[in-house]
Structure formats: structure tokens, C-alpha cells
């Protein structure tokens, strides 16, 4: 069993802030050798997935820790790309923990942006706006 617990109750981070927490486990397979903690972003939506592994750290697990153990992790939130959600593309940041070589894993999503919150790409215009602008230009000639 794997679990990620963040030190911050909020999963929203601004660039430069520390993403810290602890990964804990119980009853790992006997052949488990490393725990890898990774900071990554990936896309979802209409397009095929893009993904980038931003930071990772693999640390050995002792035999005594196979039954129960934990590690603290700490990352610095990058300033780009920001988490966003649009009609076609959604970009999500996440912390992933991987037990190697068994490749048991757990992933918890977070949000990184200038405000912390995921940016929503709604259509910030409509035909009526464009028409109002055109009337403005016409009347101000």
C-alpha cells in the first residue's frame, strides 16, 4: 500500500513555493529495492498525451523497511507550464511515487499556476462582443 500526504492542505502551489510531503508504504513486495518520487506534468483531452518528468529521485529501501516505511520529499514548483484546462487540452501537474522494480505506483495531482488554481480556458469572447467592438470602432472613426 502506498500513500502520499502533502504538508500543505491545499494542493495548489505558486511558482517557487515548496511542494513537500511524505510518501509512506506498507507490505511492499520482497523484491522492492527503490522508491522513486517524481514531479511531472501531463496532458489529457482530445490530443494524444504529452508528458514531462521534471524532477525525480530514486532512493534505496532497506530490507527492514519492506513492511512499513516512509520518505519525505520536497520539490520547488516550477513557473511553467501552468496547470490549465481547456476544451481540447488539460495540463495537470502531479507527484508520482514508484516502487522499483515492481513498478507499483501512486499518483496525486496538484495545481501549479501564478494563482495556484488551475487556469480555465473558457472562450473569453463571443460574437456579441466582437460586434460591440466593431460598433465601437465604427462610431469612433
Amino acid at each position, binding site marked *: 500500500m*502506498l500513500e502520499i500526504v502533502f504538508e500543505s492542505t491545499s494542493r495548489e502551489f505558486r*511558482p517557487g513555493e515548496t511542494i513537500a510531503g511524505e510518501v509512506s508504504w506498507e507490505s511492499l513486495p520482497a523484491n522492492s529495492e*527503490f522508491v*522513486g*518520487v517524481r*514531479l*511531472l506534468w*501531463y*496532458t489529457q*483531452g*482530445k*490530443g*494524444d498525451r*504529452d*508528458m*514531462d*518528468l*521534471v*524532477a*525525480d*529521485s*530514486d*532512493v*534505496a529501501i*532497506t530490507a527492514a523497511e519492506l513492511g512499513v516505511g*516512509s*520518505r*519525505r*520529499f*520536497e*520539490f*520547488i*514548483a*516550477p*513557473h*511553467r*507550464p*501552468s496547470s490549465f484546462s*481547456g*476544451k*481540447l*487540452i488539460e495540463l495537470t501537474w502531479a507527484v*508520482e511515487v*514508484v516502487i*522499483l522494480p515492481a*513498478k507499483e*505506483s*501512486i*499518483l496525486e495531482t496538484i495545481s501549479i499556476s*501564478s*494563482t495556484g488554481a488551475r*487556469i480555465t*480556458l473558457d*472562450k*473569453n*469572447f463571443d460574437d456579441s462582443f*466582437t460586434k460591440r*467592438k*466593431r460598433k465601437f*470602432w465604427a462610431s469612433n472613426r
Partner: protein
Amino acid sequence: MKGNQPLSERAKTNGTGCARFGLAGIGLLFALVGLGMLFYFAIIPAYKKQAAIDWPATECQINQAKLVEHPGEDSTSYSIDFRYTFSVDGRLYSGTRYSFVDGTGSRGMATAQQREFPAGSTGECFYNPVDPRECVLDRTNSNQSWVSVFVPVVFAVVGSAFFFVGLFGLGIKPGGGSIRKPAAPAGSKMKPVPLNVNLTGGAANEYSLDADKLDAQWLPPRKLKPETTRLGMFIGLSIFSLFWNGILSVFFLVPDGPFQGGGFMAVGFLLFMIPFLLVGAGTIFGVAYYFLAMFNPRVEIAMSTGAVPLGGQFDVAWEVEGKIERIKKLTIEVEAIQLATYQRGTDTTTDTEVFELLPVAEIDDPVAIAFGSEGVTIPANSIHTFDAPRNKIKWKIVVRGEIPWAPDIHEEFEFRVSPNSDTKFDQR
């Protein structure tokens, strides 16, 4: 979120690369077979036909014109076994070739040849003056079937398409969507680490460093280049149109083609060809359109900075050269679009969605059309430029010019939007 295979590991084992190379291999095989067939059945006979234009004619004695059957799995094909003799400068020569196109055909075609040159008759044959042993009865390749051209061309074209799609994936990098592979090799032995030691990972973000570098390059004032030029569109479309319509013309111009005989076969084939003919007609129209568009007034766009931070302001200046009086109205807008590319089988599709539209100028006064500038503010709550292999966010200045009775002006100039300037910091 739990899964059997970690997300960060999936990029390592993506099978897309193998499938793509397999597709390229099959495509290459098809293309080579097609080219080989084309060379043997079409190009070589055409070359020999051309070379034989000056061959002298002489009277020859047809000694044999025997119909030969070639049974196949589904049908039987036929050929005529000719034997004829002629003399040149008092020396007797013999020949067996009907034309430069070897092979078998329908019974009707074979018997037509037999009627043309029956055994025991005299006819006209042509010989190579340099080596009279090389001779033919028909040097025009009149027995060449359109199938001998059509099939190899299809093989070559389709095979080539599969090869290039398989190899280059239409611009998509093979091997999964990962931009960068994990730095730490999995499975390497390390010393045991005491409990509760910080696992600090620097946010050494290769993606963000590359993007920041591009932003820095775009920061100074600059004149923007259009994404596609009218000349480029004209040339590209012309090449495609020549290629497409050239292949289509084979079916109409080749002797003994599917349209020569008339009847149901010709009508059926014509119906089958309608979509292809429509595409061909469309390309011709497109070529004419972009040819005319090349004579449109030219628009130049300059920005006070090519990389604008979210929430930042910039000035955009325009200058129009050429016959400005032709432009009824000029519209300049800033657009932000999402582009999402996906593959379904061998098809690659890119969907786009405009999510931000900022009016800059809408002018019908020729003086104001000729040159001008406006300030623009990028919304602070929007998203910066994002460039990944399959998913992108692009920002553009779009210029549209209405020209009555002529192709309208439509030019797009890409620029960069960087993250909010307050959030930049030095990476570790």
C-alpha cells in the same frame, strides 16, 4: 490515482515506435515493388519506343502466329508466339517480338494481334539499324494495357505514403509523448539511506528552461513573419495539383484505358473517379486562388516585443504595401488557440479551438489601413505559450483584409506569451 504502470514509466515502453517502423517497412516494400513494376512495364517500354522512332521499316515474312494460353488461378491470359524473318543488306534476320511491352493479355487482344499478322502473310516490321537482331512488329506499344501503369502507380504512391507516415509520423515524434526521459536510471544499486532523509528534487525543468530561452530570444522588438506565405502556398499546392492531376490523367490518356471502350465499365469507372476528380478540380481552383492572392497588398506586422508576459502590454504596428485602395476593410485581432493532435490508426488529426480573441483594429479608411499602431493587453488570467509534441497553445496576430472580387487577405503572425513576470525565479 493508482495504476499498474506508473505514468512516468509509460513513455519508455510505448509501442507506437515499433508499429510505426513496421508501417514504414511495409510501405517501403510496396513502394519498391510499385516502382519496379512501373520501371519494367511502363518506363522501359516507353524509352524503347522513343528510341525506335528512327528505326527503318522493312517487309517481313510472318512464319508463325500461334495463340498461347497461360492458365492462372482465377482466369486465363493469352499471348501470340510470333516468328518472322526479314533481310537487311542481303542478310537474313529473325524476330519473335511483337512490341516492347512484354506480357500477356485478354484473348481479344491476342487474336487482334493474330489477325493483324497472320501466319503465312507478309507484314511490316522495324529493326534497329545498329543491330538488326533487335526488331519489333509494333514499335508504338499499342498493346500496353492501362493496368500496367495504374497498378504500379498505386503501389508506388500508397507505399510511399505509408513509408513517410510511418517514418516521420506527419511531424509527431515517435516513441510516446515524453519530452524528456527520467534522469535517474531505474534499478541501479545504491547504498541504503536512513529514514526521513529529505528527498529534495530541484525543479531543474528542462522544458521550462528551453521555453524561457525562447522567450528571451523573442523579447526584443521585432518584425513578425507570416506563418505561411502566399508564394509558399502557391508552390506547394501547385506541386500537389500537378502530382494529383498527373496521376488522374493517366486513366484518361493511356491508350486502351478504361474510358476508351465505353459502356458500363467506362461509366462505372467514371463514377468511381468522381471524388478524385473533385479533389483535382479543387486543387486547380486553389492554385488559381493563391496565384491571384500573390498580387494582393502585402501586410507587415511589427511588435514592441515578441514575448509578452501574461497581463503585459505591447504595441502592434502594421504597414500595408501595394494597392491599398483594393482593400475594403482591414481587421487585426489577437487570437489564442489550443491545438490538439491525435492519431487514429495511420491518420493524424489536429483539432483547434480559439479561446481568446482580442480586437486590435478594424479599419476602412485607406490612410489608416496603410499604416498604424495600437496597444494590446494580454489578459493576466489566460495561459502562456505552450509547445509540446502533441498539444500546443499558440498566440497569433491575425490580419484579414476584405478585397472585393479577389482573394481576401488572411495572414497570421505568431508571437509568444510568457508566464506572469512576477512568477519568474532562478531555477536550481
